[in-house]
């Protein structure tokens, strides 16, 4: 993380969207994804780089009351594979297969009947995974659906990037000790001013910018 994006994020935090609004955007994306695919659930998992875990950041449908905030290791499982390889994947279980064992599902926790998952890619990084669970079993999967999933994942990746920037900015605003906190406080203060005070405040900032050679 460099100072420059943090500074911009700190200033932006005072004047643009909040964590709540970006979370609402993520919820809206998974809601539309679930609806378009006729699925029972959809979710966005974010990578926590510090703990190397995937965290349920937005969930709609089955599990929305319990899964939000739930974590699991990022290196394993299907979502982990999608994240590590940056490759989308579609899996549908064959329940009537005689080799299927219910014990396996109980051993490994919740196993959906079907899963579509695509990585959330932004620039060179993978931020998380978009998954759509249990689309209708009677329809065969098609490549058009894979492309649609990719489009949703791109949209979600942009929203997640904004959410992460907002979080970094919030962290700066909440941290009165950091070097950049003064910039964040200034942005918030100026944004709160009205009419003549705002005009004077902006004039003062312009003078300051010229003095600093900006």
């Amino acid at each position, binding site marked *: 993380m460099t100072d420059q994006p943090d500074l911009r994020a700190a200033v932006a935090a005072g004047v643009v969207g909040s964590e709540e609004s970006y979370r609402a955007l993520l919820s809206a994306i998974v809601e539309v994804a679930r609806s378009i695919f006729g699925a029972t659930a959809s979710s966005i998992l974010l*990578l926590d*780089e510090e703990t*190397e875990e995937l965290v349920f950041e937005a969930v709609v449908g089955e599990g929305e009351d319990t899964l939000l905030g739930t974590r699991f290791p*990022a*290196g*394993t*499982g*299907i979502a*982990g*594979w999608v*994240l*590590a*390889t*940056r*490759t*989308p*994947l*579609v*899996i*549908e*279980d*064959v329940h009537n*297969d005689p*080799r*299927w*064992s219910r014990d*396996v599902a109980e*051993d*490994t926790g919740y196993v959906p009947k079907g899963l579509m998952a*695509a*990585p959330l*890619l932004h620039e*060179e*990084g*993978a931020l998380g995974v978009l998954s759509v669970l249990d689309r209708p079993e009677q329809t*065969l*999967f*098609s*490549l058009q659906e*894979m*492309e649609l999933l*990719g489009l949703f*994942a*791109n949209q979600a990746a942009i929203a997640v990037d904004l959410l992460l920037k907002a979080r970094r900015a919030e962290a700066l605003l909440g941290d009165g000790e950091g070097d950049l906190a003064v910039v964040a406080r200034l942005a918030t203060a100026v944004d709160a001013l009205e009419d003549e005070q705002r005009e004077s405040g902006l004039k003062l900032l312009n003078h300051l910018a010229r003095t600093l050679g900006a």
Partner: protein
Amino acid sequence: MQDVTGHSWDASKAALPAWSLPKDAVDRIALPSEWPDRVTRDWALGGAMGDGVRVCILDSGVDSTHPLVGELESAVVISIGEDDEVIADEDTDGDVSGHGTACAGIVRRHAPESKISSVRVLGSSFTGSGAVLLGGLRYAIEQGFDVINMSLSTTKKPFASILHELADSAYFKRTVLVASAHNMPVESYPWRFSSVISVGSHEEPDPLDFFYNPSPPVEFFGRGVNVEVPWLGGRTLTVSGNSFATPHMSSICALILSKHPELTPFQLKSVLYLTATNVGGAP
């Protein structure tokens, strides 16, 4: 004859330089392969079972206890040591996601006599997975596998140049690198390199159907939609994605190489082109 430094030079005693072909050396590069008037799919792979061809699954590991996979020639897990050295330990954990098992199952089904090995590059740690991926690929090339199935890619640009070198080195060592194309609008590697066989998906049900793409970078389309595969815990799943089209193309490469082991990656690609379903391979 004198060379540019003025020293005398006897061409007949010099080793054949890789970058030129003296007149008297033409016979030395005569090729053993007898090519038919028309390269057909039957000539290319008819009756082949993949005998003796060594296929490496560079992925999440392989569960060899699954009846649809069976015995592996070898299985290692890759890690990076303190001095950045590549460490390949025997892998006793099997498969951490199920994906590698699925790929191995596809190869086993279509090239049943091939020798399958697993090189696990996923699962030990998410951080540094790019270095492990590179290390695993380097290890696999050093092992001299005939085919390396790589159903994964990286978006990290700093890795691109090293991957490019590795892909070229595989190509010149007669190791065919079969890599999944990305079906999302992002720059990723190594499938974009011309020294690999890059694979996207088609929706046809025939597992040996494959199509040449006249608009690269994706060069071939293999079966990648609604494919039944082995998974963890002895299960069978139906799966879709370019990562499953890739082992179909790896299987086809193994079949061709078992019948025509003398083919270089360049020649193999040419045979794939000539026998693609949309070129000359339709029944």
